[in-house]
């Protein structure tokens, strides 16, 4: 069960987006989202399943002709490529959240491609206009937009949804989050799995039915807990949130162990629970407003998450690729924080989805070499 659980979780993370376009009947209940700041609770409450577009090394020639270079992350190139090559023709809907400007622009581009008949009929292309700043009007607005998205998805799925349906979906997701937290805890003080392995196990949360995820994650955790602790430089990934484990592989090849990352696919998968005691729509909206990790997450909120992670790490790797418009601004503050905590760091500027550049690899090797501790007690 343990090995098959790990295999199933890994496949559930890697495969769903790639599989779209192969089986029209299978695609019909899929809602493609461009980043996991669209609440999976309401997608699932509507009887649909979320499939998240992620970055990849596969070429995207059709998308490259539409999207200006260096402005859109790889995951959006992959999404637009899938649209332009007809792979998303049968999905239930495509939802892009407002939680980064490239996602919003991509929404406008997709609408324009339809209007100009560059692509044929598409499923509904929706903007989930989640705002993340403060102000009373923001919470009200987010709740209204969440309600609007729920109504649209319910209409697409031809379902009538009650508050109890939503509370049930939130409760199930919270159970899955608890399982993800137990799994994530095995990476911390005495890590028993590498980040390369952990990220897919955690990230599968977004794709799997929560009940299934909870069972598989528990089985995987039980198996992993029996492993011997790993030694190596316990490393945090900060900067642009990774959505694949390619960078984990490169960094861990140099003797580090990525024990946590500020990413909704890794350590932040669980994030906070949805409050199931209050109005279900407002609770879901509030959870995603305050817990989503993305380019518009307020600088203080992000810094608090990094601070929380620091006691468990020996070093920090900060990924700031060329398409970043946001996280690079945090670097001077982050550097000061790391200096206060006497933690070494390295900044990588390569594309995290491609084989790591020699210059970045050199920075990682230097970080690991300089931080090497012969006894590596991790106490």
């Amino acid at each position, binding site marked *: 069960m343990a090995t098959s659980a790990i295999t199933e979780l890994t496949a559930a993370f890697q495969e769903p987006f790639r599989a779209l376009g192969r089986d029209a009947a299978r695609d019909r209940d899929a809602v493609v989202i461009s980043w996991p700041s669209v609440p999976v609770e309401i997608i699932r409450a509507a009887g649909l399943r979320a499939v998240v577009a992620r970055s990849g090394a596969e070429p995207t020639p059709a998308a490259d002709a*539409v999207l*200006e*270079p*260096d*402005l859109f992350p790889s995951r959006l190139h992959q999404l637009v490529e899938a649209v332009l090559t007809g792979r998303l023709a049968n999905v239930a809907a495509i939802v892009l959240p*407002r939680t*980064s*400007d*490239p996602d*919003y*622009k991509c*929404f*406008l*581009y997709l*609408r*324009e491609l339809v*209007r100009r008949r560059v692509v044929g009929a598409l499923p509904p292309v929706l*903007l989930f*206009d989640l*705002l*993340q*700043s*403060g*102000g*009373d*009007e*923001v919470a009200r*607005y987010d709740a*209204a*937009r969440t309600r609007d998205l729920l109504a649209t998805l319910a209409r697409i799925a031809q379902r009538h949804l009650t508050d109890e349906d939503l509370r049930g979906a939130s409760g199930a997701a919270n159970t899955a989050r608890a399982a993800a937290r137990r799994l994530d805890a095995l990476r911390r003080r005495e890590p028993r799995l590498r980040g390369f392995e952990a990220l897919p196990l955690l990230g599968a949360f977004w794709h799997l039915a929560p009940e299934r995820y909870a069972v598989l994650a528990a089985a995987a955790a039980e198996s992993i807990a029996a492993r011997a602790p790993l030694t190596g430089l316990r490393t945090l990934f900060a900067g642009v949130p990774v959505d694949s484990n390619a960078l984990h592989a490169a960094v861990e090849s140099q003797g580090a162990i990525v024990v946590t990352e500020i990413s909704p696919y890794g350590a932040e998968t669980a994030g906070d629970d949805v409050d199931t005691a209050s109005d279900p729509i407002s609770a879901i909206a509030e959870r995603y407003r305050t817990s989503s990790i993305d*380019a*518009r997450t*307020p*600088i*203080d909120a992000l810094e608090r998450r990094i601070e929380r992670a620091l006691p468990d790490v020996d070093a920090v790797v900060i990924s*700031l690729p*060329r*398409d*970043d*418009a*946001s996280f*690079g*601004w*945090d*670097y*001077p*503050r982050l*550097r000061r924080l790391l200096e206060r905590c006497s933690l070494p760091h390295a*900044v990588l*500027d390569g594309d995290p989805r491609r084989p790591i550049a020699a210059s970045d690899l050199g920075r990682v090797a230097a970080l690991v070499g300089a931080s090497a501790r012969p006894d590596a007690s991790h106490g």
Partner: protein
Amino acid sequence: MAEKQLESTTRAAAFQKEWFGELRRRVFDERQPYALVQADVPFELFDLLDLPAVSNQWWSSLVAAKRQAPAFLDAMRADGIPEQLCRYCSLGLATTRYSRAGEAPWGGLPTPRLLCARLTCDCVHRVFSLWAEAFGAELFEIDHPGATELPPRWWELGRRRWRDLVEPHRLEFVAAALERLVEKLETISGRRLDRAALRARLERVNRQEEIFDEARKLIASAPATPVRMTEQIANVMATQWVRGTDWALAHAEHFRDEIARRVDEGVAAYANERRRLMWVGAGLWHDTDFYTAFEKSHGAVFVWSMYLAFGPDGYIRYGFDDPIEALASRTASFNEYLHNPPWAAEWIVEQARDHRIDAALVLHPRSLKPSATGRRFIEQALEEAGIPALPIEADVVDARAWDPAVTREAVRAFLDERVPR
């Protein structure tokens, strides 16, 4: 820099310098508050509550025009901030955070009481948070909800049917944010906003933009453009930052009348005009000579930029039963009008036709993310309308990677090949 052909331009430059000097005097000598704001916030609210507002983009363009940007941007790079991040929005921050790296114009920015920004691009929250931290000042943010309904011909709907132009939920949201801003400004100033005075101010803004509309029509219909694009920008922007004030109205009229006289007298900005160009994007502030560089060689004159045209099309709102809502309808979609499909391309093609444009140069400012998107849709729409378009890759304030000779040569080749005369 090309010689100033209009007396209005000299007046506008003198006014700005005097205005900024007076601001510094008020702040330093009288300890009066002022606000540092993004260009797209409603300046009228600040002015009516006695909190003069300085535009971040104006300040950046001034620093760049004074050739001081490289020193500050180098200091920012040395601090580890990646090169690809937005320079236009952050150059002002650099002049504060790394104040010793260069010489900021006119004595530099004093410490504001408040910073205010709309959260359009992802960088804005971060740049303004760092800036507020550097000054030890407060930041007020207006979030930017995304548009989902973008009806055709926004510039016509916006004047009288502005409630049809912005989705009700977005209009309500932005209006609520502006009401919260009013409360903040009232707290700072210790005064209440006079809503009747706001209506009156917005009516005066309308009048100012109507005058600019007349100026635009004069330029579009004259046999040869009577005023260079750079002088259009200098006059319009000096006026827009203080829109609706006595000086702004008087200056708009003076500007329009001067253009009218030149048209009546048959005076052209360049006598041998043979090709009419449009510039799509923010101004190339570090090299404004670029805009006159093709006059002698090709008779190519820049006739149009967004700055004059956007005044009447983006700002005029008739019907002020709720002046905050009217302001919100203007504010809600600035970026969508200017940069995003389908609105930007549709408007720019319309403007190109009105101005008898022969070719367009389209700025691709990779670091300036909001105005770097939508470029391909704009170019495609122009080409489909029979207007050749040349992409120009450049940063609007950062001259460090700009090779003036190479770009000028590329433009000359483009004019020879695609716009023969």
